[in-house]
């Protein structure tokens, strides 16, 4: 009775079929697709790692450039400040020099004026002495213009403090 339902050939064929199907599907379907997916996964991981690394590198470079920029700015600021200070010093020095020179010129001019004035006064005095003596000569009708009288008149004028 049971032997009616059992078929040894079916048993053998099924086993053979299944092994063949396993080998074929493994070769055609499971191996290529899983390998393909594995490769893709790996390449995605790799590219993501690359991107991450490049990003961190870029950030590093950015930090570096930023600090360099800051340094350069500070340097520029320093140079500017120094230049300003130097210019100020130069300016002050020039002004000082000019002042000094002007002062010197002024003093010299004053001296010259004094000299000129003294000269002029001397001349005037001599003229006055001469005039006085001439006037006196005319009044006295005698020549009063002697060395003696000239000294006398000069002394008189000095005493009067005309100069």
């Amino acid at each position, binding site marked *: 009775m049971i032997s009616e*339902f059992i078929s040894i050939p079916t048993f053998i*064929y099924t086993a053979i*079929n299944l092994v063949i199907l396993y080998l074929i599907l493994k070769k055609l379907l499971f191996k290529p697709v899983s390998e393909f997916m594995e490769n893709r996964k790996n390449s995605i991981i790799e590219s993501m790692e690359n991107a991450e690394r490049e990003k961190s590198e870029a950030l590093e470079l950015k930090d570096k450039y930023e600090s360099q920029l800051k340094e350069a700015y500070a340097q520029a600021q320093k140079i500017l400040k120094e230049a300003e200070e130097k210019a100020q010093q130069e300016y002050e020095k020039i002004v000082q020099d000019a002042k000094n020179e002007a002062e010197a010129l002024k003093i010299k001019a004053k001296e010259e004026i004094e000299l000129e004035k003294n000269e002029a006064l001397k001349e005037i005095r001599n003229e006055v002495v001469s005039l006085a003596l001439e006037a006196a000569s005319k009044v006295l009708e005698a020549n009063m213009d002697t060395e003696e009288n000239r000294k006398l008149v000069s002394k008189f004028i000095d005493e009067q403090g005309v100069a």
Partner: protein
Amino acid sequence: MEGFGSELQRLIKPNKVFDISIFGFDMSITDSVVMMWIVMAALIIFSLVFTRKLKTIPEGKQNVVEVLVEFVYNFAKDSMGHNGKLFAPYIGTVLMFLVISNMAAVFNVIPSSEDIYHWTGIEFFKDLNFAIRPPTKDVNVTLTLALMSMVAVALAGIKVRKVSGWLKSFIEPVPLMLPFKILDYVIRPVSLCFRMFGNVLGAVIIMELVYFAFPAILPAFLSIYFDLFDGILQAYVFVFLTSIYIGEAIE
């Protein structure tokens, strides 16, 4: 009812499609084997068509195979651990074969060879004895599948623990366990085989009865449950248990 009785007989017994004898042994090909060939052809064509020109960015049919393969590999990894990857192709093959086989009853609208003979009178179909039925309704097929799963379990155990370690696993933790462990190896394939066989044959018989009583509309709804849902569920259960057994063996 006479016709239905013989129909049931035909459903349960293996039907010889081609009589072949090799070295005097009867090596006749039964309808289950022919159905297996059809299922195999379908699966091979599927693999050929769907794995052509794999692209990095999947589109269309490539998504289908990727989802399928990923499901099988994840399934294997979940139930068998890291070594499960080795057995994923086997598990996937059995799963796909069983799913398609169990669903074959959906195509029972395709006339059987007997019907074709009645309609056309071509002699070739007279004794062909072939109809589209799930090959898994044949206990021979399910028994082979279950035995092969057990062979896979044994191979997995030997591969991971070496022969001595595998033999030792029979007397662990105490030698007293030996008969039970051997029973375990016998009972597992038998339970796997008869669960599948009983479910599929039961579904086929019920559907046959329903077709007999209500030829239209109702069978369509019942077919969704008995042919599609139950078929896929039984395929999943079979594969799930097999993978658990393999997982235990390689633990």
